[in-house]
């Protein structure tokens, strides 16, 4: 089983890459569909003909009528269609309820599956699906590279509760203005739209400026700082995932206190002292790096308190030697 858990981090990169590349492919699919709908192959520009040809080759094995069949996949992670199944971000449903001051049930039902999955797996969206995470993790790799080159990168620690304030203020402002304002400060929603604008419309819009600012914030102020301290969606997922069933636990018997898990944790958590909390997004990077296979998944609605130093570590051995000498 632990062998399987160790591969999960690779699997996570595969899903992140698939989601992100789908966000790039879908606008091209839309363009292809519009060319097909217009029966305009002879009229479109050479660059558009290239798009048409490539997309035709890519999709022809799967669909017979691109105009209709390719509608099966639409939208982005904020809200989208997956083979007839509508899915929405829980934050979309909550902020729509706040801005409209009424509950629109069809939208809430589309958010039901993500909510249930979050209650089981915690903040898994942030680690496994979010298209912004893909870029943020590459960004933190870049920060490591810059650090090796001797440039300054930020490692400031802020209060983790800041994001709940951002969520509350975002919802209150949505309520006050009657517009879904959280959509403007939530990176996956921004990316979903902006990639579409860039490919199918006329270039990046205002949201991309905000997203680049968050990238700089992560680079210069705090590693993965936006996700940890400011993201309103992350705040909602954290709250929903407080009593999640699947969580990572340290086996104190095989832990050697090497602290590699703490170094690799993107969210700056403390697996070495059993401090995961509701922030953990089950990304399994710590499981993948652990040299003694001391981290594993358990089914439990609560974290356990600090179990003391690992039994293979120096501190534990010293304590036991002292006891042995005393006796």
């Amino acid at each position, binding site marked *: 089983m632990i062998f399987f858990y160790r591969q999960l981090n690779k699997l996570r990169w595969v899903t992140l890459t698939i989601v992100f590349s789908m966000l790039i492919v879908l606008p091209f699919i*839309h363009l292809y569909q519009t060319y097909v*709908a217009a029966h305009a192959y002879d009229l479109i520009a050479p660059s558009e003909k290239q798009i048409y040809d490539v997309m035709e080759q890519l999709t022809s094995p799967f669909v017979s009528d691109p105009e209709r069949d390719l509608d099966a996949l*639409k939208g982005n992670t904020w809200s989208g269609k997956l083979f007839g199944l509508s899915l929405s971000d829980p934050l*979309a449903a909550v902020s729509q309820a706040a801005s409209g001051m009424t509950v629109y049930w069809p*939208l809430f039902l589309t958010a039901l599956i993500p909510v249930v999955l979050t209650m089981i797996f915690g903040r898994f969206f942030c680690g496994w699906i979010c298209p912004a995470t893909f870029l943020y993790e590459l960004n933190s790799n870049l920060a490591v590279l810059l650090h090796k080159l001797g440039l300054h990168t930020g490692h400031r620690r802020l209060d983790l509760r800041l994001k709940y304030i951002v969520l509350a203020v975002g919802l209150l402002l949505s309520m006050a203005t009657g517009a879904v*304002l959280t*959509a*403007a400060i939530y990176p996956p929603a921004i990316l979903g739209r902006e990639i579409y604008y860039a490919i199918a419309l006329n270039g990046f*819009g205002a949201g991309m400026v905000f997203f680049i600012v968050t990238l700089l914030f992560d680079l210069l102020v705090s590693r993965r700082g936006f996700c940890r301290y400011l993201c309103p969606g992350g705040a909602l997922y954290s709250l929903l995932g407080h009593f999640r069933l699947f969580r990572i636990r340290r086996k104190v018997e095989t832990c050697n206190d090497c602290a590699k898990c703490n170094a690799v944790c993107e969210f700056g958590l403390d697996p070495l002292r059993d401090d995961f909390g509701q922030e953990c997004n089950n990304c399994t990077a710590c499981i993948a790096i652990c040299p003694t296979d001391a981290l594993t998944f358990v089914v439990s609605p609560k974290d356990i308190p600090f179990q003391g130093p690992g039994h293979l570590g120096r501190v534990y051995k010293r304590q036991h030697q002292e006891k042995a000498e005393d006796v």
Partner: protein
Amino acid sequence: MKRRQFLSDLIFGAAALALPVSATEARAGANGIRYLRPPGALPEPEFQSRCIRCGQCGEICPNRTIKYFGFENGLSSLDTPFIIPREQACILCMKCGDVCPTGAIQKITRDAESILSKVKMGHAWVDKNICLSYQGKTCGVCYRACPLQDVAIKVGMLEQPHVLDKCIGCGLCERSCIQIPQAIRIMPYYG
């Protein structure tokens, strides 16, 4: 401590005053700007509070009609869909309503009866000083472009267009007008 108390009173007092004012203003659509929304969209203040800015309406549109606002009208209309009929007009396929997850654009079946009764994007208006037919040169292009001929628009002598009350504002007439600038325009419907 006293100053902190004063400052917090100031902030919360201002917020308490500003919140209802801005709320009623925004909800009444008090900025007075009219937007040409996709077909079946709710009236303006409700539309802005319903739309979650997911961009699916634009992604399903087979005619690449739907565009998205930036900051030009402020934050409340950011990333909401709109249409510029002169660039690309709505062909009334009603797919955007099917795909909208929030009902901001309502589901409407694609037949003339339900479209005529439920869709109200705007209303066409003819500038008689520019229109060729009103200058004595027979044209009638807008009439031929209209998907609801003789219901939404009819032509009189010299093919002079007369827009009727049932016009829903799809904008195909504005798209097709051969005059520059266009002699027929869509006035967005408001509330």
